[in-house]
C-alpha cells in the first residue's frame, strides 16, 4: 500500500515539475495521471496494492472538494452583487453542456457500442 502511495506521489511530483518547468497548460496532477497510466500500460495489469490505494483515494474524492468549496466565504459580497447573472449562467451552461456532450457522444459512439454489445 505504502509503496503504491509513493508511486502516486512520485507521478504527481514529476507531473508538477514538468508542467511547471515547461509552462504547460495542464495541471501537474493531470500529467501525473498520464504517467501512472503509462506505468500501467508497461506493467500490463493493475497490481493489487495499487488497486486498493487508488480505490481508497477515489471512494472519498467528493470529500476533498469541501475545503475549496468553503472558499465561498471569501466572495459573499461579490457573489451577492452578481448573483443573478452568475447563478443563471452556471445553471443554464452546466445543463446545456451536459446535454450537448452526452447526446453527441451517444450518437457518435453508437456504432462501437452496438457491434460490441456493451455500453
Amino acid at each position, binding site marked *: 500500500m505504502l509503496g503504491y502511495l509513493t508511486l502516486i506521489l512520485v507521478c504527481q511530483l514529476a507531473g508538477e515539475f514538468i508542467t511547471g518547468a515547461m509552462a504547460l497548460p495542464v495541471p501537474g496532477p493531470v500529467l501525473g*495521471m498520464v504517467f501512472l497510466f503509462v*506505468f500501467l500500460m508497461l506493467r500490463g495489469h493493475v497490481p493489487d496494492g495499487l488497486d486498493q490505494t487508488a480505490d481508497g483515494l477515489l471512494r472519498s474524492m467528493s470529500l476533498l472538494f469541501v475545503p475549496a468549496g468553503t472558499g465561498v466565504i471569501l466572495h459573499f459580497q461579490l457573489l451577492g452583487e452578481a448573483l443573478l447573472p452568475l447563478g443563471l449562467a452556471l445553471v443554464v451552461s452546466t445543463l446545456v453542456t451536459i446535454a450537448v456532450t452526452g447526446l453527441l457522444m451517444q450518437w457518435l459512439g453508437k456504432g462501437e457500442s452496438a457491434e460490441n454489445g456493451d455500453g
Partner: protein
Amino acid sequence: MDSLQDTWVYLSASPLFHLTLTLVAFQAASLLFERMGRNPLLNPVLGAVLIVVAVLVLTGTDYGTYFEGAQFVHFLLGPATVALAVPLYRQWHRVRRSALAIAVSLVAGSLTAILSAVCVAWLLGGSEAVLASLAPKSVTAPVAMGIAEKLGGLPSLTAVLVIVTGILGAMLGPKLLDMTGVVDWRARGLAIGTASHGIGTARALQVNETAGAFSGLAMGLNALATALLLPLIWGGIVWFLRS
C-alpha cells in the same frame, strides 16, 4: 471552568479542529444524502460546505485559519487525480474504440460550456471581469484559475464558480441525462466530466466504473482543450459582445 474555556479557545483555532470539522460535516451530509434516498438536492459536497461555512461564520473564524487544518484534505486532490489512471486503464479498451467520438464530443462540449455561460451572464449584465472569471468554470480549479487570470478575471472568484459548477453538474446531471435519453455509460461519464470536472467525476465513480473512467478522462481533456482554445477565442468573444 476557566481551564475548560481556555482549552476550547486553544483547540478551536487548531488545525485538528478544522480538519475534524471538515470530516464530521462531510459524514453528516453523506448520512443525510443516503437516508433521504440519495436525493440529488442533498449533494454531500454542498451539504458539507454549508455546515462548515455556518460554523466558521458563527465562530467568527477566517478562511485562512480554517484552511490550516483543511489543507490536509485539500492536498489529497492531487494524488486522487493521479489515481484516476487506474479506472482509465481498466476501461481503456472502450476509450480506444471510441477515440474519434470522444474527441468531437469533448471539443463541442468544451465550446458549449464557455459560450453558453458567457452569453447568459452577458445578457444579464455581467461585467467583463465577471465574464472572464466565468468562462473557464467547467475546468478543474487550478487550470481554470490560471486561464481566468490570463483573460483578466478574478482567479479566486473563478475557484468558487468552478466548485459551484461541479456541485450543479453532480446534482442535476444524472437526472438531465435520464430525461434526454442518454443511457450509454460512456456518454454519461463524458458529459458529466466535461461540464463538471472532478466533483462530477467523483459522483460518476460512485455509480458506474465506465462512467467514472470516461468522466475522469473528460476532465483531463477538457482542462487541456479549454486552456488551449479559450485564450485564442477570447478576443473574438469580447469583440462580438462589445459590437
